[in-house]
């Protein structure tokens, strides 16, 4: 390096230097404020100030343009440029750029202007210099303190990553049975080390999230899933109906794919299904896979059912939950079928839960469907509580057709007297008369509460057919709801269109076609006009013996019906 003494004299001799400091002359006013700036508030400001301090000529040029600088400053700027250019080169090749004489000249000037040789190379810019943080904000806009904190976090993360790397390598070495070179013992990863690694990974995930907004999936960071290579989802081109879902879901599915292809059944798989079900309870494959895990691992079914209860209450409209429950009960039943007490206890538990969930959603089809299946599976036919709880639901809402439907199954499918294989719409001679009477009476009492409610009408008719009784056996009851039919608009009174409908059937049954026709006509004309087409069709059926003809279609009755089989 050239000596300072020599350098200081030379430029002074040529021309009046701008100042004794390094400030270029032409930037008086602006650089004055820039050179004595207020305390920087952000990192960007601090670095820009540093830039201006260390590269005064470059800063002045940027502000004013090269042509507006004084000769002296232009010279200073050129030297500054050359200096930074040569600084970038390896020491050995610096002399190639400029000859020794020119180099000397530059150093003279540099020393004369008190340029700072190791100034900032680039002017710091927002965004590009430090990048953005997790929220997309410029890190340069951070306060000094905040920036220092971020810097410490990055150091901490790096340190953790190094330790984690060591741990992973140790796991790998343990797996391969490596021997520690120094101690001569086999490498063993201790429980403590695993615990430490768990802490480390959660720290790393927190730091990464804090610094970069990177969401490390819970699974990728967990030691438990270390040995599984997730299979990411690759969507081919032309995809339809893509759904936006969180990264967490995508990650979990990629692990699910991995364990499903190897048919792994393990506690961690069970936890994985729970994790996915919490995000998407309608994924039937996940439920099936969960069932497979439960059966393979011999998990207690009552425990699983208890867990399932919570999930069911949180997802009322879900279908898969009930299929899963069905599978669980099928699996569990043989273990308790020989113990009547256990069976009764289980039936009670199930009913208690069904009552609870039906109180939330009284007509839930999946729940009712499961319930009717359960009655058959556990043989709850004679269980008085079952009938009582249904009666209670009908009392609460006489229009709850689901409850009516369940009642019919409960009463008329009881294997104690029901003939196996009889269809629901078929007469069954074995059904006791008093039962038929009891149910007809029950339905009639409910009709009085709300005559226009179709459920008890349907029920009563179903009971009569099952019991093989003529519909006319309830004629007196039905006629209570119809007064002075056809005796004038003012006189005529119909309390229920369903009564008029049934009355038409009763008259037709008794071959009183004219009376039947009147009922149907009044329904079409006045009482139930929106079904006009239907009532007209029924009227036609009264005169035609073949009621079944579809319009314009010749049906061959000769075809052997499969129903006969």
């Amino acid at each position: 390096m050239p000596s300072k003494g020599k350098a200081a004299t030379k430029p002074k001799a040529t021309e009046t230097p701008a100042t004794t400091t390094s400030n270029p002359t032409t930037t008086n006013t602006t650089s004055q404020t820039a050179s004595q700036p207020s305390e920087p508030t952000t990192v960007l400001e601090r670095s820009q100030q540093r830039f201006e301090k260390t590269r005064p000529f470059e800063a002045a040029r940027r502000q004013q343009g090269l042509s507006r600088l004084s000769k002296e400053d232009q010279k200073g700027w050129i030297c500054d440029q050359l200096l930074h250019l040569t600084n970038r080169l390896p020491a050995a090749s610096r002399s190639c750029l400029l000859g020794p004489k020119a180099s000397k000249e530059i150093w003279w000037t540099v020393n004369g202007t008190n340029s700072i040789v190791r100034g900032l190379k680039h002017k710091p810019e927002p965004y590009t210099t430090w990048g953005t943080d997790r929220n997309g904000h410029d890190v340069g806009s951070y306060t000094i303190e905040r920036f220092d904190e971020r810097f410490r976090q990055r150091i901490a993360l790096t340190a953790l990553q190094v330790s984690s790397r060591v741990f992973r390598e140790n796991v790998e070495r343990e797996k391969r049975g490596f021997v520690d070179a120094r101690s001569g013992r086999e490498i063993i990863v201790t429980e403590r080390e695993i615990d430490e690694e768990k802490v480390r990974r959660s720290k790393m995930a927190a730091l990464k999230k804090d610094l970069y907004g990177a969401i490390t999936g819970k699974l990728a960071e967990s030691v438990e899933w270390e040995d599984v290579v997730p299979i990411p989802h690759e969507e081919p081109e032309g995809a339809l109906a893509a759904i936006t879902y969180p990264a967490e879901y995508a990650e979990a599915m990629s692990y699910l794919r991995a364990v499903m292809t190897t048919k792994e059944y393990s506690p961690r798989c069970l936890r994985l299904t729970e994790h996915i079900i919490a995000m998407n309870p309608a994924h039937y494959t996940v439920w099936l896979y969960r069932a497979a895990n439960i059966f393979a691992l011999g998990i207690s079914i009552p425990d699983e059912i208890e867990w399932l209860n919570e999930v069911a209450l949180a997802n009322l409209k879900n279908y898969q939950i009930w299929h899963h429950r069905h599978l669980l009960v099928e699996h569990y039943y043989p273990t308790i079928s020989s113990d009547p007490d256990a069976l009764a206890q289980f039936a009670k538990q199930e009913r208690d839960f069904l009552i609870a969930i039906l109180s939330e959603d009284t007509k839930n089809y999946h729940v009712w469907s499961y319930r009717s299946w359960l009655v058959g599976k556990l043989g709850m036919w004679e269980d008085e509580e079952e009938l009582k709880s249904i009666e209670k639901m009908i009392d609460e809402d006489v229009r709850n057709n689901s409850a009516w439907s369940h009642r019919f199954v409960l009463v008329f499918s009881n294997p104690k007297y029901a003939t196996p294989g009889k269809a629901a719409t078929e007469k069954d001679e074995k059904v006791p008369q008093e039962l038929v009477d009891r149910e007809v009476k029950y339905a009639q009492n409910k009709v009085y509460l709300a005559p226009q409610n179709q459920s008890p009408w349907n029920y009563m008719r179903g009971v009569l057919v099952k019991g093989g009784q003529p519909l006319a056996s309830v004629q007196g009851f039905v006629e209570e709801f119809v007064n002075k039919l056809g005796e004038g608009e003012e006189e005529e009174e119909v309390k229920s269109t369903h009564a008029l409908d049934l009355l038409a059937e009763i008259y037709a049954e008794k071959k009183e076609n004219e009376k039947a026709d009147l009922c149907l006509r009044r329904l079409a004309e006045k009482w139930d006009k929106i079904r006009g087409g239907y009532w007209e069709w029924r009227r036609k059926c009264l005169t035609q013996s073949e009621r079944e003809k579809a319009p314009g279609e010749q049906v061959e009755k000769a075809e052997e019906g499969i129903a006969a089989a």
Partner: protein
Amino acid sequence: MENDNKAHEEPEQEWPYLDVHRHLRYWKMCIRAPLPHVYLSNESNRLALAYFIVNSVTLLTPPPSERTPETPEPLISREDKRAMRKWVLHHQHPTGGFCGTSSLVFPLHSYDIYNFDTKTLDEPDHAGLANITSTLFALQLLALLADEEDEAAGENVFEGVNRVGTLRFLKSLQREDGSFGEALSDLPGHGRFIAGGYDMRYCYIATAIRWILRGDVKEGSPGWVEDFDTEALARYILNSQTYDRGFAGNSQDEAHAGYAYCAIAALTLLDRPLTTSTSSSVPHKSPLLHSSIRDLPGLIHWLASRPFVYLEPPPPSADQDPDTYIYQEDDLDDPNFLLPPTPSDLLCLLSQIAEKKGHDKTHVAFNGRTNKVADTCYFWWVGGALANLGRLDSLVDREAARRFLLEKMQHRIGGFGKSPGSPPDLYHSFFGLAILGLLGDEREGGKVRGFDAGLAVPRETVGVIERARRKLIESEKGGKGVVDGEKELDAVEMGLELRGGGERPKWLGACGY
């Protein structure tokens, strides 16, 4: 042009108008942007969503023969259709059947039982992740995505479908009682197991897949597969009529319009001729339907009971509005099923409303079960069931049903909601259009394609299915094998040629080329 618009506006009062463009806008949004997070519950069955989208767009797009120079470009271009068909085929499981979502299509080699020599799975009846529902949607999608500009191209839409494997897969899903499950699953301790509830939907889907793929291949010829037990299935379905004469998943459950449709359509499809020469537009005889259902008049009664007069929910200050004096306290919980206590009350209310409005046009809604609320999809399930029975025209007040759908269920941004005022969703938006396709609407502008009540696709698509099936069976007879494999081989040959000839590398032989 202005006059034309006026002409549209006038009959709008008389005949509710379907704004095709608005609906297309809704579907365009569903194609172009990912569906919102609420659809995550359908992630396992994305093919169903795709089916709703493509079927609806097809319903709203006039067939090439009816297009005029003013008709806008179809929403799905020919190139898009090709790419989408490829995407659908990607869901096929190597041993037959389709998976519901590409996220469950695993690379073959990721299976433990993958055989690198035979390049397939070492288990010919691998349970896989195919399911019955997605299999039908995939086949329907392939046909819906046929290039309509080119009839010959339409023939090839089933190219690459593993027909024999899929029919075998279908057969393996039938339970002993004749019903169908949705998927095969290996449950430890239970062995190979047919998963899925006792659900009439699977029974219907089985008959539809059978009709689409089976054809009239004679026993012993190539491509013949043993049929599933159709009699057992029919018996199961016929036994599922309930005490109140509707249909359910089985006779122990509550009657439900969705299941009624599935039961009736399944019986119709079992009787629908499988021969490729029969044109599907001619109604076929269905002895199963017309002489085997135990109580057919009862079933019609049950279906005819589904429509009801829809009454507006009362305004917030119910006590001030004379229209609503009749409502009772507890009715207010159920604003969708506001039937007054007696028929006279209803008539009285209706005449008051008519007086106020100046006309007596009512809104007719459909429910799916006795005493349940209105829902767009039940227009389809009930209407479709009646259409299969040949009774849609005579039993449904088409105008009142249309009016309700278009005035109450149609949404401002296009599409249909589940109930009045609710936002549109794919499922209800599709079924709203489907029932309009069945009801028919010949008015200019608001037209949708005619719909097949059995296969739930536009009628033109049924023709595509028939041609594609014939072509697929022919290709099997020719013993050409899997078409994709051939393409791969072509690529190998092309590669060799580019390499500049020379000896065929030995490793190619090891790979099976």
